[in-house]
């Protein structure tokens, strides 16, 4: 079968429809949340949560539970722990997170090994770590859509207080913003979006949807709303195009073995970022020095 006829059969394929739905919501949520992760300097936290989600996903697989719940439980739990441990203490944070991350991945290795010994399903390791949008069970779609909508609407509702507390936590406190509660809510939303992306493109790669589109958006858009819109467009576009390419790749060598969809998605996320670096936007540095002299108010 040639790739053109494959392309023609794409809209009627059940697995593709599921992938488009789940991938779309995961991409939109992660990228919108990711813009704030970058603004708040928490992309590192997102990366740590992604690694720990692998532990949850493999544990869930071993127990025979839907992996999404494993991703969510461990990521949200870890987010709560990170907040309790004091995210503001930067120096201790890196070391502590590094150790917890290592321990988490060690456990994931154990869970995946045990699962491989006791079940007949192969490819579990690959699915947990690198995702497989085409093998998502349609019965699992409603909780994924639910989690995505909750995370996305929380981000939209909190957007202003998130920006204000990123600008200066003290300014936000003075204006009556409960900064701690906002910070905890954000970490939970971050954990949920990491779990969603883990389902779509795998636990290890989920940071790609979180940070990649956001990083590109920060280079092309100047305002916060524009940056969020750009990040969502890049992420959803990359995910959907990735699905199409992965589907069509069944016609590529090695024949009959499609390329992993996560590979295409991550590549399509990284590509625009690389492009923005090639065509670098000049920083209006000169503006500062040239205009400050003109803007001295007359006493």
């Amino acid at each position, binding site marked *: 079968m040639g790739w053109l006829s494959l392309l023609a059969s794409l809209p009627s394929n059940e697995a593709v429809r599921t992938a488009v739905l789940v991938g779309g919501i995961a991409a939109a949520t992660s990228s919108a949340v990711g813009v704030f992760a970058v603004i708040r300097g928490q992309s590192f936290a997102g990366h740590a949560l992604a690694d720990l989600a692998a532990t949850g996903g493999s544990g869930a697989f071993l127990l025979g539970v839907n992996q999404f719940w494993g991703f969510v439980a461990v990521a949200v739990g870890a987010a709560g722990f990170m907040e309790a441990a004091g995210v503001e203490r930067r120096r201790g944070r890196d070391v502590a997170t590094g150790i917890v991350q290592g321990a988490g991945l060690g456990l994931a290795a154990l869970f995946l090994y045990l699962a491989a010994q006791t079940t007949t399903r192969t490819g579990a390791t690959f699915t947990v770590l690198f995702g497989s949008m085409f093998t998502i069970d349609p019965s699992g779609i409603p909780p994924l859509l639910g989690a995505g909508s909750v995370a996305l609407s929380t981000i939209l509702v909190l957007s202003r207080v998130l920006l204000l507390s990123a600008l200066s936590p003290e300014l936000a406190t003075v204006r009556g*913003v409960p900064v701690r509660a906002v910070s905890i809510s954000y970490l939970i939303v971050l954990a949920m979006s990491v779990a969603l992306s883990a389902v779509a493109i795998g636990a290890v790669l989920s940071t790609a949807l979180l940070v990649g589109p956001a990083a590109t958006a920060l280079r092309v858009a100047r*305002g916060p709303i524009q940056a969020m819109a750009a990040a969502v467009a890049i992420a959803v576009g990359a995910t959907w195009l990735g699905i199409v390419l992965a589907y069509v790749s069944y016609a590529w060598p090695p024949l009959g073995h499609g390329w992993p969809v996560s590979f295409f998605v991550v590549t399509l996320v990284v590509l625009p970022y690389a492009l923005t670096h090639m065509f670098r936007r000049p920083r209006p540095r000169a*503006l*500062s020095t040239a205009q400050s002299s003109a803007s001295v108010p007359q006493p």
Partner: protein
Amino acid sequence: MAGAFTPAEELVRLDQVSVRLDGREVLRSVSLVIGPGEFIGLIGPNGAGKTTIIRAILGLVPISRGSLVIEGGTRRRRDRSFGYVPQKLVIDPDAPLRVRDVVSLGLDGHRLGFPLPSRARRELIRETLASVGADRYADARIGELSGGEQQRVLIAHALIARPRLLLLDEPLANLDLRSEQSVVSLLARLVREQRISVLISAHDMNPLVPVMDRIVYVAGGRAASGRAEEVVRSDVLTELYGHHVDVIRVHDRILVVASPGVEEHTTTQPAELSVIGRAGA
């Protein structure tokens, strides 16, 4: 200092306020009144307690003794009538936050949901930026601006909520001389034209001397306030520091100098005391 305003007019009254942080008394019996339209300089060496006074007024630190009355006791929330300008921002230069977004957050950054874009809102932001001389860089990212430009934007952020009192924490630190002068004259103009009160902390009083109505001199957690010529005197500051200091005037600049060989006191650091009114940074 007391008696110039009726209690109803007073924006802030601190009576014998003490603050303990981590078991250490960082403010001891500080009294201070801020009336409408006053330009007050909060002067003293680093670590003297200037920031703690500002934070106590804003309700960011609890007071352990004394009383703090906001607007004659008529108000309990200070979020709208007090504007705060923090010392500096630690925001990523790449953060997608333009100057106009920062000022917009001053209007309703504490609210949930999205602001609806409107012509009135855009116009208000433009006017506020123009009033601090920052309208030229409305579309620049906040992280791309120099320290002086960021201070102007933060002042606009505070002003757009129409506060009665502006509290600024060391806004002149790390500014070059020209930016320093332009920020001071901007603040003086706001006090004159809009009847806003200003409480500004600084370790160097000299740029503020021409515009201050009153000075609150802080050393070792204690404060003396009054007109500059009443407070910046060898006898008053010697009493405040707890050891002898000289006040020297050279070329229109005031220097506060610790005498050599002075017995070291635990509450002050002689190294920082030796010359407080340094020229420049």
